[in-house]
């Protein structure tokens, strides 16, 4: 597939723009932190924790997929005239281009993971006679002549994949070892024993093992996916692995953009309440008690219904279904952000109340330093670790919340790929005989992996940044 500028029309959805803005902000922050020793130190401590680093690697894979999936474009219709190009209404992403066949190889309906037949019997013509049997899949295992060739083929592919993954891992490990032995001036055997006993000063063992595992898993999946539907297909015959992978972006967007909305509200209001006290505090406390007192799901539900009404009232604003779904996703992030700033604001208020009485703030006041300056130089830098901890801790909760909201019917657009929609669409199929479990299984497995990695990483960050729980597991 050519990605020439004349063949495609780049599409920048709102969430794409925000995601890349966020990415830029994170990179800028990293650059800034690298130059501040006291900010770098806790991150170095995070980097020394094996669990956190292993989790970070897994997260990195998810983030990469999510970012690739945020580069959107529309293909030019092949029959459109060159001077007046027309583009497909289907919005694709770089990720779609990469996985290619996974998206397009659509079966008729359900099929089990790695199957070569459909899930349900149908009347098919075989040798002139119409019989009721399991029809062969169009793509899954289509290369096989006979059904009994499937298992050997699967085994061959898995072994091939694992072997390639292992080879790649060993190669990478060799490069690492070569660089490290030269860098540290050690003999290879010596370095190997240091590495093996985990005394490198950074969690080399965990990083290498996690990478190797992921590589092997990736290559094995690659070889299987080339000829089978690894997680089966869904009701309309789409590859479940593809859906699950596409859902990553939705999860990441909700987990990060929501926080982005929360942060300014929580930081400004929380610090203002704690620092100024008096009527400012009263007003802010009133606002967040009111917001807090409304059951969260209901408030989100009410707001989402309203957004839905608004979107339906103005169909002309959206040229594609993707843009419409995207606006709803963005609205969901906004709504969840507006309803969930209270927790962090309360935390920051309490901390600012404490900080304002500290001697260094008094000293600044004795110099007549302005409030704005006191807040920006004395209060904010000293509550920043709380903000950071809350970002990473909230992330996993938000990813999980998406599933629940989609189940309630106030989550992302039903046309959007998301784990919540997968679960929602599949849970009634559990009653079928035999059970259609793969959709649920895939959604839960992906969600679990992401959330677990995020939680483990968050643990590492919290331990490193929070002096109270520091050094304690």
């Amino acid at each position, binding site marked *: 597939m050519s990605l020439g500028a004349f063949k495609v029309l780049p599409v920048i959805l709102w969430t794409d723009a925000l995601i890349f803005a966020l990415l830029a902000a994170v990179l800028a922050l990293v650059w800034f932190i690298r130059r501040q020793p006291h900010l770098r130190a806790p991150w170095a401590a995070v980097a020394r924790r094996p669990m956190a680093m292993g989790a970070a690697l897994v997260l990195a894979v998810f983030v990469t997929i999510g970012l690739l999936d945020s580069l959107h474009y529309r293909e030019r219709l092949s029959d459109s005239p060159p001077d007046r190009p027309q583009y497909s209404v289907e919005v694709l992403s770089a990720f779609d281009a990469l996985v290619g066949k996974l998206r397009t190889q659509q079966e008729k309906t359900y099929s089990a993971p790695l199957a070569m037949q459909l899930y349900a019997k149908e009347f098919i013509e075989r040798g002139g006679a119409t019989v009721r049997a399991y029809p062969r899949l169009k793509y899954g295992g289509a290369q096989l002549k006979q059904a009994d060739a499937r298992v050997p083929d699967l085994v061959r592919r898995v072994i091939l994949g694992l072997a390639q993954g292992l080879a790649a891992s060993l190669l990478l490990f060799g490069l690492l070892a070569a660089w490290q032995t030269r860098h540290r001036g050690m003999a290879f055997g010596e370095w190997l024993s240091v590495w093996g006993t985990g005394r490198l000063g950074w969690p080399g063992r965990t990083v290498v093992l996690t990478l190797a595992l992921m590589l092997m898993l990736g290559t094995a999946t690659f070889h299987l996916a080339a000829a089978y539907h690894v997680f089966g297909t869904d009701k309309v015959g789409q590859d479940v692995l593809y859906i699950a992978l596409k859902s990553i972006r939705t999860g990441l967007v909700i987990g990060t953009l929501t926080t982005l909305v929360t942060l300014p509200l929580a930081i400004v209001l929380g610090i203002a309440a704690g620092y100024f006290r008096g009527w400012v505090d009263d007003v802010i406390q*009133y*606002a967040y*008690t*009111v917001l*807090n*007192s*409304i*059951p969260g*799901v*209901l*408030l989100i*539900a*009410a*707001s989402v*219904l*309203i957004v*839905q*009404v*608004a979107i*339906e*009232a103005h169909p002309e604003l959206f040229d594609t279904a993707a843009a419409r779904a995207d606006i709803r996703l963005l609205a969901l992030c906004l709504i969840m952000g507006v309803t969930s700033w209270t927790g962090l604001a309360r935390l920051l208020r309490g901390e600012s109340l404490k900080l304002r009485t500290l001697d260094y703030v008094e000293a600044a006041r004795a110099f007549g330093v302005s409030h704005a300056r006191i807040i920006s130089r004395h209060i904010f830098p000293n509550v920043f670790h709380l903000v950071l901890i809350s970002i990473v801790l909230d992330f*996993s909760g938000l990813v*999980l919340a998406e*599933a*629940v909201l989609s*189940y*309630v*019917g*106030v989550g992302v657009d039903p046309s959007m790929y998301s784990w919540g929609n997968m*679960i929602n669409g599949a*849970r009634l199929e*559990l009653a079928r005989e035999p*059970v259609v479990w793969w959709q*649920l299984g895939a959604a*839960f497995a992906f*969600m*679990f992996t992401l*959330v*677990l990695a995020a*939680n*483990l990483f968050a*643990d590492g960050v919290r331990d490193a940044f929070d002096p*109270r*729980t520091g050094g*304690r*597991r």
Partner: protein
Amino acid sequence: MLAYILRRLLYAIPILIGVNLLTFALFFVVNTPDDMARLQLGAKHVTPEAIARWKVEHGYDKPLLLNAQATGSARFTDTIFFRHSASMFAFKFGKGDDGRDIANEIRTRMGPSLAIALPVFVIGLMANITFALLMVFFRSTYLDLWGVVLCVVLMSISGLFYIIAGQYFIAKLWNLLPISGYAGGIDGFKFILLPVLVSVAAGLGSGARWYRTIFLEEIGKDYVRTARAKGLSEARVLFRHVLKNGMIPILTGAVVVLPLLFMGSLITESFFGIPGLGSYTIDAIQAQDFAVVRAMVFLGSFLYIAGLILTDISYSWVDPRVRLQ
């Protein structure tokens, strides 16, 4: 103490008014009743007449805030705001789209909700504390380490998974308990067991981990060293001294949700077919029954504020240092 409670009750009024205004704004100002009607009627049936009829049926044909045509106090009372928002302060919720009286529904559905939520609350609290204490007792051993890892794993699993897996394995595959349903009285026990079990399991990871942190913070304090210096055994130190202090944040943190137990749990009730307030709410959201949603918002905030006041009172009960002023 009495003066304190009175003051807190008075403070609750502006908050409820705030909630009320907010819901009013969300439901009637941002989106007009016309929008609602359109959404409800669906694209095919939207005609001006249909909208007008829908509005009359639901009582949304009045002006929002001020009825210029009416006279006397009716200028203010014969409005959407007065009839649909302000009336909630008298717990008059009106009727839902299905024509049933909302207040009545709430009364009959509270029971089933409590039948699930209360056992979940009590058993969950005890399970979390027990698990947390076990981890603290074996702190800085592998038992504790793996306990924490288990907690993180448990809390990384989606709540929906617990329900679906519980229903599938326990009810469907092994036939140990009914998949869903509800019955009052003793017979209801078999219906309650599975949702309670599933909910407790879903809350165990985060709950136990949080309590463990609280206990660990207490265990690092000076008075614990004093207790050890008296010659107390580690178990007595933990149960008599640490537990007593650690229970203060745990209990008061739990009290907030106590009144909200009436509201039940949205997801659990809907999956298990419990005719409680949770499933009522979720049905209303899915059917876009705004009257019910508004009523539940108001009820929820009312109970939350009750929880806040209860929290303060419980503080003065469990912590001798707190005197309500």
